[in-house]
Each structure stands twice: as C-alpha cells, then as structure tokens.
C-alpha cells in the first residue's frame, strides 16, 4: 500500500538522529514558551527563523512544527495553573482546568490534558496522512457563506460556555464582538473605534486581551484575597488521575478529537472553534452539566483533545495548498521559501521526504511531549507553592514581555492594563471572560464573511440557504439553540410549578 510505504519513508526521515534531536529541541522550546505566559509560538518562531536557515529544510521544519504544537501543549499548563491562556484554544481549558487546580486537582487536570492531547495528536496525525488530499477538497468548498454559517454556529455554542446567567453570557459575547471590530474595515479602509490611534489600526491584539481579562484580572482577584490561593496548594492529594477518572475521560477525548480534526482543516479560523465546540458538546452530553465551570474533568479533556487535533490537522491546508491557516503557519511558509522550497500544491509529490517526514515527526513529537510532560507535572504543581508575592510580579513581567514581542507595539501593553481592569470589574459583576473572548475572535470573522458572501451573491441574502453546506450549518445552529434554551425553559416552568405548589 502507498500509505504504508509513505509512512515508512516519513518515519525513516523523522527518526534520523539529527531530526529526532531537532524535534526534541522544538517540543522542549515549545513547551517552555507555552508555559511562560504571554510568549507565544509566533514570536518564538519569528526569533528562531534566522537560525533555521543553516539547517536542512526537513530538520528546520520539524523543529518549527515542534515549537508550534509544543506551545499548544505548554499553553494549557498556564491556563490550568494560573488562569492565563496564551492562545485562543486554551481559553476554554482555563475555565474548568483552573477550577480543578483551585480544588487541589491541578495534577489531575494537567495529566488529563497531556493524555488527551497525545491521543488526539496521534489520531489526527494519521488523519493527515490518510486523508490530506481529499480533505483539502472539502476545505475548498467552504466559501464566505459557509464560513459565516459556521461562525453563527460557534456563537450560538458560546452561550453554552457560560455557567451562570445566559443573559450575562450574551452580553459578554456582544461586548466581545464590539471589541473585535476595533481596527480598519477591510472593505472600505475606514478605521473603526481606534480613537485615532494608528497602533490599533489592525485591531486589538488577541494575546493582550486574553492575558488581560483572564490573567491580570485573576492576579488582581488573588491579591485581594490571599487566603483563597492557599487552599489551592494545601489540598493536593494526588498528582495523577485515578482509574475512574481515566475512564471518565475516554468519551470526551474521543469526541474532542473528532470535533477538532474536522474543524482544524478549515483554513479560515476553523481551528479556533474546535475547543469551544468540544466544550459545548461535553456540557450538553454530560450527566452533570452543573459541574461545568466548577472543575469538570470532561471540560478539560474534551477541549484539550480538540485543540491538539485541530493544531495537527491545520497543517493540511499548509502542506497540500501552501496556504497558511494562522500566523504560525505563515512563518513556516516563510521558512520554507528561504530554504528554497516554495509551498504549493506540488509539495506532496515533489518533496515526499519533506511532507511525510514532517507528518511522522508530528507523531514522534507528540510522544515526546507526553513523556516529557507527565514527569514535569509534579514540578509545575510545586510551582504553585511559590509564595504569591514572588510569583505574581514574575507573571506580570513575563506577560508584558510576551505581549510586546508579538508586534513590538507599546499600545498592546496599554491594552493589557485596560483589559486586566475590565476583567476585574467583570469578575465583580459575575460576568465570564470566555464568551467575551469567543465574541472577540469570531466577531470579525462573522462580519468579514457575511459581507463577503453578500458581495459575492450581489446582495442576495438567500445565498446562505441555497448553498447546501451553509444551510446545514444554520440548521445545526438552530438545533443547538433549542438544546441550549430547552432546559432553561423547562427549569423555569418547574420553578413556577414548585412555587405555586408552595
């Protein structure tokens, strides 16, 4: 079979001593920068780019890919330990992961995240290997109308993210949408809500907003009540999940992998949706939805698997079309070009060693990550015992460096401060930051694709219903909406009944 000989070729390339070493360096570096709050894969890869020129093309790409998924991995560590997601995908992990940590189950959360990610990484790597070309065809069928409907579905799902009031969650989504509008309108060139500051012409920086509303706000809350944090470290009973907990994670991990693999293929922001979508699915299927937001195991296992699966399958458009799905992929294209390999539809056939070598290295890299990270869990958890007056200034400094390094823009630091304050106020008002972040990420995509679909259809709104994929997605959103509101309505009716009984 072709596939087997291809994979064999891939593994022979990836398991050469040098390539194994570069893969290890990549995942190590990735884990490290992922763990440092605020410093993302984009900045690191940009800094390392010149070094890779001296390497073999395969080695350099294996290393860069390692940094990318290593950072995804490390990013969940900070999300769980200090409520500081560095990437949009780990924002969801922060919701329940951090609550688990607060209850002394940080070790369990980290182990579940690591094992879930490994499983998802393994499965999706094989998906990439087997289905890359046909999946690309599917991705190309997604035009503006389809993306719009997909975003609608994502926003509807976001309501399920809230574990308190639905109205407040909606308010946060809308606030997020508005914040997402800051910047230059791509259709008219008009600057919107930039207050005349050119530095905001390209919009607010995601990392700045996320670090602010999650991380800085959390620091402010912790400083307010030092006692709260002590509980976190004193209650640690065990580092690894029990057999029963392992059994509990099987379902969420499988579903998360499926959701993530499918959404990761779509180049226009599909991967962003993966962890959000998985969280919604788990909450809906759970026998104890009330646990979500209070430290539900499935709320970590599902989204973590989904985001890792999405991270792997988002290589498909890069490798088969030469089109980057996100800024990290754009950097990898830059690296390939400088190496004299111009990414495009022919890479698979012209550079089989490169293509299959990278795919095989992804699997090896995921294995390394899990071997590397399981023993590290003890160390990370011990990090929580560092006195907070030492820990929080370090976190603040790392955040600021990380945010600044994304675009060398001082205004991003002002944004961190502002959103930190906003996040603190929000927590006082019992509003959740996750729906805000989702609105912030999806809002611009929703608007962009809505307007593009309308331009392409010459102003005919039925385009969303006449295109089959788009119509299906809209129907699904309607279904989700009903599922979300049904229990609410039923509960209210029950409440009314109990009251009248009394």
């Amino acid at each position: 079979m072709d596939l087997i000989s291809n994979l064999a070729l891939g593994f022979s390339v990836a398991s050469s001593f040098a390539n194994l070493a570069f893969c290890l360096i990549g995942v190590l570096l990735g884990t490290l920068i992922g763990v440092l709050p605020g410093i993302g894969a984009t900045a690191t890869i940009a800094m390392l780019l010149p070094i890779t020129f001296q390497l073999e093309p395969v080695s350099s790409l294996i290393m860069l890919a390692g940094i990318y998924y290593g950072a995804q991995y490390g990013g969940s560590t900070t999300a769980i330990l200090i409520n500081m997601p560095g990437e949009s995908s780990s924002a969801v992990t922060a919701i329940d992961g951090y609550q688990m940590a607060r209850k002394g189950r940080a070790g369990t959360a980290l182990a579940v995240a690591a094992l879930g990610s490994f499983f998802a990484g393994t499965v999706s790597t094989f998906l990439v290997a087997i289905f890359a070309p046909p999946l690309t065809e599917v991705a190309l069928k997604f035009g503006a109308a389809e993306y719009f409907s997909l975003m609608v579905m994502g926003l509807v799902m976001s309501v399920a993210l809230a574990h308190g009031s639905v109205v407040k969650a909606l308010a946060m989504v809308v606030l997020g949408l508005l914040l997402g509008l800051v910047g230059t309108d791509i259709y008219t060139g008009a600057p919107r809500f930039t207050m005349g500051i050119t530095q905001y012409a390209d919009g607010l920086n995601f990392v700045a907003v996320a670090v602010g509303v999650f991380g800085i706000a959390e620091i402010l809350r912790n400083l307010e009540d030092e006692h709260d944090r002590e509980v976190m470290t004193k209650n640690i009973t065990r580092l690894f999940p029990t057999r029963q907990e392992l059994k509990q994670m099987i379902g969420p991990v499988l579903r998360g992998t499926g959701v993530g693999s499918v959404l990761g293929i779509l180049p226009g922001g599909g991967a962003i949706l993966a962890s959000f979508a998985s969280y919604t699915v788990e909450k809906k299927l759970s026998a104890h939805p009330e646990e979500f937001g209070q430290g539900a195991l499935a709320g970590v296992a599902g989204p973590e698997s989904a985001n890792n699966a999405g991270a792997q399958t988002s290589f498909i458009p890069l490798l088969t079309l030469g089109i980057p799905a996100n800024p990290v992929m754009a950097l990898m294209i830059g690296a390939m070009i400088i190496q004299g390999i111009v990414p495009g539809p022919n890479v698979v056939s012209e550079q089989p060693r490169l293509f299959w070598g990278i795919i095989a290295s992804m699997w090896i890299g995921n294995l390394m990550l899990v071997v590397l990270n399981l023993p590290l869990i003890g160390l990370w958890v011990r990090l929580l015992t560092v006195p907070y007056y030492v820990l929080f200034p370090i976190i603040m400094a790392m955040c600021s460096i990380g945010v600044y390094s994304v675009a060398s823009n001082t205004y991003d630091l002002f944004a961190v401060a502002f959103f930190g304050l906003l996040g603190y106020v929000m927590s006082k008002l019992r509003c959740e930051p996750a729906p805000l972040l989702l609105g912030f990420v999806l809002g611009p995509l929703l608007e962009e694709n809505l307007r593009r679909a309308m331009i392409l259809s010459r102003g005919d709104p039925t385009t969303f219903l006449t295109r089959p994929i788009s119509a299906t997605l809209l129907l699904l959103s309607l279904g989700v909406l009903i599922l979300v509101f049904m229990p609410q309505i039923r509960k209210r009716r029950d409440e009314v009944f109990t009251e009248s009984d009394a």
Partner: protein
Amino acid sequence: MAYPRLIGALCATTMLVAPAFAQDWPQRQITMVVPFSAGGPTDTVARMVAERMSADLGQQIIIENIGGAGGTLGAGNVAKADADGYTVLLHHIGMATSATLYRNLAYDTLDAFEYVGLVTEVPMVVVSRKDFEPKDFKEFISYVKDNADNLTLANAGIGSASHLCGMMLMSALDVQLVTVPYKGTGPAMTDLLGGQTDLMCDQTTNTTQQIKGGTIKAYAVTTPERLELFADLPTAMESGLDGFDVSIWHGIYTPKGTPAEVNERLSKALQAALADEGVIKAMADLGTAPSPAGDATPEALKTKLETEIARWKPVIEAAGVYAD
C-alpha cells in the same frame, strides 16, 4: 580594580570614534525594520538579502517586524529613529502608494528618509480560477469586457499588491468589476483555488507554485518584458493594454540625516548581496530577480519613489478608496 581603567579606555574609544564616525561604521549590529509580519513575501525578501549584506558588512543585520496599517507604522518608526545608520527600513511599493492612500501619515514620505537602493522588482501575474473560460489573454480581454457585471476580482486588502494591480487592470480594461477584499493573500488565494471568486492579480511570489500546480490559470504578466519562468505568457502591454506596467518594487531606506557615506556603504553591501548566487537562485524560485547593480543605488531608489508616487496618485484618487 580593573573597572576604572576599562571605563577610561571606553571613554577614549568613544572620543576617538565620534569624528571618524562614518568611516568606522558599522560598529555593532544593524536593525532592519520590515513593516509587515514575519513570514510574508516582503519579510522573505528582507531575510534573503539581510543575511548576505551582514556578511559583506561584517556586522549582523537583525530583522525587526513592525507590521500594521499597511506598512506605515514600521516606516513611521524608522522615520523617527536615530540617523546613525543602525536602523534601516526595507519597504515595498507601499512606500509610494501610502503617500496617497493615507491622508494623515505621521511622516512626509519624500522628506523623512535617505535612500540606499532598489532590491528587487517582483512581477505580477493576472490569474483566474482554473475553470475560467477564456483560452488566452486576447480572449480574456474581450470576455472580461463583455461579462464585467458577473465577474469578481479578489484582492488581499486595501493597499495590497493585488489591490493596486487590480485597480490598474480595471482602469486598463476600462471596466468596473465587483472587487472582493480579503485579509491577506492566503485567504484570497484559497477562495480563488476553490472557485469562489473569478480573478486576481498578484505577485509571482504568491502565484508561481499554484500556476505550476495547475490549480489556477495564468493569463498575462504585468511587466514590460516576458518572464523567463513563464516564457509563453504574454505581457499585458504587448497585448494592447498600454501603460499596464506594475511590479512590486522593494527598496531600502534610512532615516533622514544618515551620513551619505553610510548609505553608500549600505548600497555597496546591497549590490554584493544581489550578486550572490544563493540570492539569485532563491529569488528565481519565487519568479523574480535581483535589481541590477545600477538600480541598487540611492539615486535610482529616489527617482523610483518620486515617479511612483506621481504615477499612483491619480489612479488611487480616481478609485476614491483611502485606507484611513
């Protein structure tokens, strides 16, 4: 203690260096600002050239990506930087078009910089989705004119190379197509590959591999001469579209007041880099070529910038689209 002596020695060195500044330049690493994000086509050009220039200058050139607002943020930073030769800017055609596209620039394009030289002029290709009907560019012209109302023209956002070339195409054909802006070349190309849009005009750096792979169709090149890479593609000009000459030229600038000797030295390093086999090959892979040594000079870049500002001003004003 050795420190006082060391400090004394350092002071002495500084005093010695000051008057003879330009001769002793460069003493430390040089920052090359690229006003776009890392990994993009301009960044790639900068990194190719910077590596070779470093070798010639004997000092490392590091790339700093200051993206945003169509390259005007990075250019603005360099305009304000110390004119000591340790900050340089690599910018493309946007340097000239932003002078008109942005009505409130923080700097005066023609007055804020000194010039080092032209780096490369990347040709552009008129491309379409792969099942677009016309067989050649002659048919293309008449087909587009007849079906203007039903065709869509994609671009990578206001001020982008594809936007500029698209404006030029419409003005040369005297048609108004429905333009569909995207956030960057990637998504615009994806939709063209998927047949969601009909036409685009973009740099060879972005289109070459797709054309070779047969996933999109190429009709004409936008330079006065045919390309070695696509010898059978006609130029737009030879097909009767007068004045349709668009290329994405890249130049290196320094802040106003940088000593002429320093610019000359940078220019020499640039010429050396552009003559390097590796650079020539890397550029050829992307469908472009280094600028000839005669163009990699301060005078040539100054002339280019002035003529291009004048040439694009009416085109942009006629389209009535501004980026602010």
